């Protein structure tokens, strides 16, 4: 179809010129304006999933996917799409990159929303749930799972409860990521610390950092990129809400942030402020695409990094191979100085957990039924053991399909037979399983503004002169306003 379009482009251009010169503007509508699900959904009121429409389609159905994957995860996704397209002839999936950051795809989605010029599937980050549910353009995953008669217990409980509002599961597929602490085991050895025992709480992070700095090994042992989603992990992990209405999931109206008077939030911000003052913190600003914090770790400038589990394969790449350093004792150094390990997310308290994170796939209801059916068929493929396993091994996305964790390729990967990153992702997978399903993470309508406000607040005391308390107060004010506007449908 693309070839056909190409040859008529010049003709189109000439026609357009003529049309303009004679002041006739052709007005065409955007994509089909199908009114979709309302904002209230319960499992009884699910919109129907048009899975039969595909059987009646006479020509191959084009399914466009908007995404922001790059590097290895993009390679894996491309491979999966090619496999899917080659395996059947009714659906043609096209990937359309919308940039390299979740902010950009959210922006593009919001811009396209009023005119409904949307693709078949959108792959966005985990914060978009409530906004997607209220937008009216999403075909809930629940509808199609129900139409297929799927047993939902084959998917991770925590992931399901994170993405469920009023009993409706909105995404049709999900990839999961959490947070790990990556650390330089050589630095630990040289500082007299046990290289097999990464810090398990923030207090321990501080103690280890002090020892490393005192031993003159690294000037600023903790590298940290100040992206607000990490703050949420600490707070959720300590069972601390960031907004009222039971962290947004209480069923009522979410009207206020819970920053002021939130002791854990204050403790967290104060901890970072004190690390900065003690000269132990290598602070990096969060700009989409920048990787300074990984470089600080790889170059030995810093010793520890708390960051996303999907960085596992990148950090492994710095090692350039599979190293077995378990035989080295305290005080000894590995041959090329590059010996990294990873540990579970060090929380505010010893029993802290993590939060749900990752990406979610939404089917749009603004396309013709056959396209929606085709989109669902592709989502079935992405939920298969094969696709989920490949996304893990190649793309570092943890599977939400439980069976994928038992797939032989995944089992051996988790055991480290494909590289040390596999063992790190096993830690991450265990973290996901340990998340309290009743407290998986916040549900916020204007989540994007919430994160911007949190980010500004952190930057004000890390890169500026504000105090942690003032930063929290400012965040409270800004988030309250955003929530008020959202609730008033402004």
């Amino acid at each position, binding site marked *: 179809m693309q070839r056909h379009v190409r040859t008529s482009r010049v003709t189109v251009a000439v026609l357009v010129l003529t049309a303009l010169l004679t002041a006739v503007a052709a007005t065409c509508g955007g994509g089909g304006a199908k009114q979709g699900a309302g904002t209230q959904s319960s499992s009884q009121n699910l919109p129907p999933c048009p899975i039969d429409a595909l059987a009646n389609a006479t020509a191959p159905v084009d399914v466009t996917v908007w995404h922001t994957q790059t*590097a290895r995860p993009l390679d894996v996704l491309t491979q999966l799409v090619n496999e899917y397209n080659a395996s059947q002839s009714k659906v043609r999936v096209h990937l359309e990159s919308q940039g390299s950051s979740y902010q950009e795809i959210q922006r593009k989605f919001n811009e396209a929303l009023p005119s409904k010029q949307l693709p078949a599937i959108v792959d966005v980050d985990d914060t978009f749930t409530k906004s997607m549910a209220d937008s009216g353009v999403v075909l809930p995953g629940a509808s199609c799972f129900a139409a297929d008669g799927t047993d939902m217990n084959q998917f991770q409980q925590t992931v399901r409860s994170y993405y469920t509002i009023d009993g409706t599961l909105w995404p049709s597929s999900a990839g999961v990521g959490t947070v790990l602490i990556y650390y330089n085991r050589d630095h630990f050895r040289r500082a007299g610390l046990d290289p097999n025992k990464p810090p398990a709480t923030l207090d321990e992070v501080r103690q280890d950092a002090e020892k490393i700095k005192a031993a003159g090994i690294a000037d600023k042992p903790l590298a940290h990129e100040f992206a607000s989603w990490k703050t949420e992990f600490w707070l959720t992990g300590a069972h601390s809400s960031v907004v009222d209405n039971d962290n947004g999931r209480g069923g009522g109206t979410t009207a206020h942030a819970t920053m002021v008077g939130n002791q854990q939030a204050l403790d967290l911000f104060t901890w970072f402020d004190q690390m900065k003052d003690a000269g132990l913190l290598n602070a990096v600003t969060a700009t989409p695409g920048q990787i300074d914090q990984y470089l600080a770790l790889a170059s030995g400038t810093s010793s520890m990094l708390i960051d996303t589990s999907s960085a596992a394969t990148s950090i492994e790449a710095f090692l350039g191979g599979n190293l077995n350093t378990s035989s080295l004792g305290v005080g000894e150094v590995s041959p090329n100085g590059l010996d990294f390990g990873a540990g579970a997310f060090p929380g505010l308290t010893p029993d802290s957990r993590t939060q749900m994170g990752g990406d979610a796939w939404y089917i749009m209801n603004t396309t013709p039924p056959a396209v929606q059916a085709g989109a669902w068929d592709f989502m079935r493929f992405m939920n298969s053991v094969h696709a989920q396993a490949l996304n893990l091994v190649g793309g570092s996305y943890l599977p939400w399909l439980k069976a994928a964790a038992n797939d032989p390729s995944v089992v051996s990967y988790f055991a480290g037979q494909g590289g040390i990153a596999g063992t790190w992702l096993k830690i991450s997978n265990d973290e996901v399983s340990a998340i309290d399903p009743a407290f998986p993470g916040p549900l916020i309508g204007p989540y994007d503004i919430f994160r911007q406000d949190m980010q500004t607040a952190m930057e004000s005391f890390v890169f500026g002169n504000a105090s942690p308390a003032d930063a929290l107060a400012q965040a409270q004010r800004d988030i309250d306003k955003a929530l008020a506007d959202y609730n008033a449908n402004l």
Partner: protein
Amino acid sequence: MGTDAPLAPWKRSAWYVLLSALSVVVLFPIYMTLVRALSTPASYFRAGQPLHPVDIQWNIFATAFSRGDLSAKLTTSAVVTAVIVGAQLATSILAAYAFTFLEFPFRRTLFALFMATLMLPIEVTLIPNVETMRSLGWFNSYAGLTAPFLATAFGTFLLRQGFLGIPRDLRDASTLDGFGHVGFLRRVAIPVTRPVIASFAVISFLTAWNQYTWPRAVTTQSNWETVQIGLHSLAAATVDKGNIALAAALIAALPVLALLIFLQRHLIRGLTAGAVKG
């Protein structure tokens, strides 16, 4: 030009040295681009980022072509540029003719209105214009990529300057010969001002080919990206393989570089119009 006195040999050499040094500074970014494009990234870093290529991959340009879908994007850029240049020439010549040779009410006001548009770049009018494109369904289309640029007051201004320079006698002779406006335009006005027209065409080409903000705003499908936007996407997508994007950048710059080398006179005249007296 410079002074007439013949230079002492050492002075000549000194100037050559200085000019060469300045050339090295000016060309350094391009040179490093070539070095990095040709080198294999991992080898280049292991070698400590030297000033010469390492582990050369001669097929990098072919790789960039296919990985960045450059033939499609170059085509898109070419069509968009051709449409814009053609349209701007047509609309500017016609408008300039009217302002120069015709008498009509509100001529001065209309000319002022034309010139006023120069104060409204696409960056200012972006939001409403994108909105218009959306409602017309002109995203991801040639219409959307070219519509706001089919006419330009800069062209009207330049060509009016050129037409004003046509001697009165030629105009009178044309009328005596029985030619109306069309005839005069075709037989006298355009041929006589060919240098100005050529210069404007070159500037128009340069601006249209190099455009970034507008194409960035009206394309969401990669097969509708111009080569400039393609560079942005490619740089973002291949952030771990920097040589591909750099090779693509060199390819994207080639058409205008060719323009510079072969049509330098016209380019310079176009750029200096209005800047240099005499």
